[in-house]
């Protein structure tokens, strides 16, 4: 047919339109790459990933594992990623606990309790998060210098950081112990939600879960015990000494001001999600539970909480992904998260494109794995089939 090839045919028009679109996009990308290469060549830089094995010659100010300026770039990137995940785990856990408390206050029957929850949420949700971060960081830096540090129950509060009593073990040992502990808890959750263990009865499954946690914790304790320095006292207490503080475990202002910000800010949003979840639990469910003679605690823990959790989980997943991204704020106060390591590396090495690629890959990886884990959890607890009446 002659008409099939004419401009009036929709198929031809669509194909041409898309071809033009792809061509334009391709040209843009190629032009970008060519310009970048030209610009980099003008500065005497070569593209490629060889630089990953060069040493960095600068220092990270917060690492979970030992690192120094002679270490290569790839190690710094791994450490940065670990810092982001570490901050993310602390932030998400803290924000969830505090957010649950605030959300429950918001759903309380008692109006004065409700008012407290409302004030909290409106205050923390309506101020830009970076303003809050700068505020907490300034507060942290305005604490007295180490010489006049405030002492409270073995803790030392100073502008150099908060010093807490710590075990006399190396940083690597602590990291290994924490890893074992986390593995135990993760195995426990896996047993709780995986289909493989669905067939088991409640009692053996619970025993299995407790065993997993117990083994993890025991391994962590063993690692810590073996890592103790036999010559020193096992608990090291912080002591002000001249201009510095000796002993103890130092929590840097950069770290805890960011953690406080993410926890308090995230809690305001999570509080609203929690409230929405509880609002979605039908009155009938609660009334039926009460009519069956369940105690108020049973009504809460066996009926309202699980149903509310099911309703809020999808929104909570988005919020978690968002909070993980908020850890990049660390660059504003100097917490070396993944993004700050990338930014500093670009400044020092000039390998712009490669680092931006790594940055995107890193965040896609984090977000994708977090949301896929949580989405599996969501599928495991979501209502099966097309019933919608239950929670609505």
């Amino acid at each position: 047919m002659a008409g099939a090839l004419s401009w009036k045919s929709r198929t031809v028009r669509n194909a041409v339109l898309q071809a033009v679109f792809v061509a334009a996009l391709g040209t843009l990308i190629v032009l970008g790459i060519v310009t970048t290469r030209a610009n980099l060549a003008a500065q005497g830089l070569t593209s490629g990933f060889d630089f990953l094995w060069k040493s960095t010659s600068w220092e990270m100010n917060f690492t979970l594992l030992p690192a120094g300026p002679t270490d290569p770039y790839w190690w710094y990137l791994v450490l940065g990623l670990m810092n982001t995940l570490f901050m993310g785990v602390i932030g998400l856990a803290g924000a969830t606990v505090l957010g649950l408390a605030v959300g429950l206050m918001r759903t309380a029957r008692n109006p004065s309790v409700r008012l407290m929850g409302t004030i909290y949420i409106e205050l923390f949700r309506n101020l830009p998060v970076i303003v809050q971060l700068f505020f907490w960081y300034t507060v942290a830096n305005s604490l007295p210098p180490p010489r006049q540090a405030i002492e409270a129950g073995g803790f030392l509060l100073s502008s150099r950081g908060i010093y807490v009593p710590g075990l006399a073990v190396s940083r690597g040992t602590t990291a290994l112990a924490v890893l074992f502990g986390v593995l135990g808890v993760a195995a426990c959750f896996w047993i709780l939600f995986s289909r493989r263990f669905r067939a088991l009865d409640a009692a053996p499954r619970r025993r299995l879960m407790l065993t997993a946690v117990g083994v993890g914790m025991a391994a962590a304790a063993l690692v810590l015990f073996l890592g103790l320095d036999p010559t020193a006292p096992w608990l090291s207490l912080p002591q002000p000494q001249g201009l510095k503080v000796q002993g103890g475990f130092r929590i840097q202002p950069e770290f805890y001001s960011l953690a406080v910000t993410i926890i308090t800010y995230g809690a305001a949003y999570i509080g609203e999600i929690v409230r929405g979840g509880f609002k979605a639990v039908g009155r009938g469910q609660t009334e039926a539970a009460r009519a069956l003679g369940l105690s108020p605690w049973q009504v809460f823990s066996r009926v309202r909480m699980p149903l509310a959790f099911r309703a809020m989980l999808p929104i909570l997943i988005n919020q978690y992904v968002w909070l993980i991204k908020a850890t990049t704020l660390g660059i504003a106060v100097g917490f070396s998260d993944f993004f700050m390591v990338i930014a500093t590396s670009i400044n020092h090495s000039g390998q712009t494109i490669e680092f931006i690629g790594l940055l995107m890959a890193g965040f896609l990886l984090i977000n994708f794995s977090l949301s896929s884990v949580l989405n599996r959890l969501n599928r495991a607890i979501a209502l099966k089939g097309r019933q919608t009446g239950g929670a609505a």
Partner: protein
Amino acid sequence: MTSRFALNPRRRLLSRLRADYFGSLPSGVMTLLSVAFLLWIGWTILDWAVLRASFSATARQAECVASGGACWSVIAARWRVILFGLYPYEEQWRSALACLVVIIVIFLSCLPKFWTFGRLAATWVLGTALFYILMRGGVFGLAPVNEQQWGGLPLTLFIFVATSVLGMPMAIALALMRRSDLPVISRVSGLLIDTVRSLPLLSILFTFAIVLPFMLPDALNGPKLYRVIFGGALFFAAYQAEIIRGGFQGIPNGQEEAAKALGLTYWQRTGRIVLPQAFRLALPATINQFVITFMETSLVVVVGFVELLAAANAAFQTGEWKFAYVEVYAFISVIYFSFVFGLSRYGAYLESRMNAGQRKE
């Protein structure tokens, strides 16, 4: 118990209040504790911020510390720096006027009378142009002021307005492309949206501010401010496109099919049938997105702009006022809070107004 007093409204109110506040022992304890806590917080703030505060414009550190309360003298001494940054001192009336323009634009677009595409577009484009002329100068006898000297509240507002004005058309384009029948176009747009959404805004701002100059030929390399605004607009567009897509999904298929049956072209269907309804459905989420965008303007401090937050930081970091950081943060917090809280209350009001027809009971 309630039924006995059912006919007496006052007694009924009293018994309900008693049931709410002192219904059980734990509830009563919680009431007493939370009321005591709120009173204590309220009193502490009142005592600090008003009763023992120093308001004198000439007071210095010694007097302020002696009074034991807030030292509002720092605001009296430094408010020009906080609000207008490095903008030339004699020209700061232009900054103030420019802020007023933006506030009027925001206020006007909150009025339902302005909710037509033409009026909204005209208001925002005119407002932005007026703002730009006032700030940049160089015409009508106004002395030119470089973008590098802009700072404080006007810069915050400018970044917000420019991001929105630029981002909204991009969002509409992305959303339309994503629902296009052409597979390549919808895939590419979907990929772009999902990639941008999974990246932190800070990394996008950083890329546009510092990395983009490497990737563009010199001719396309505008001032850093506009590159950062473009990055922010892209981020805004990726989120807003998904909000609009949510609106699209709320429109029954029959609407577009009927429009097709009437012989309307694609642009007529989109402009007259689909988009207006999608926007109506997406309105609460859109306002929420504006609120978030306003708060996110403060992130540009990381790539070196002296907007409200950075100007405030500069205002107390001069040694003399170092102790008075709480007052400075309280001052800018009130500014941010009034914008954000006002907008989000307005969004909640709109939502309840729109749902008035569907409300049960």
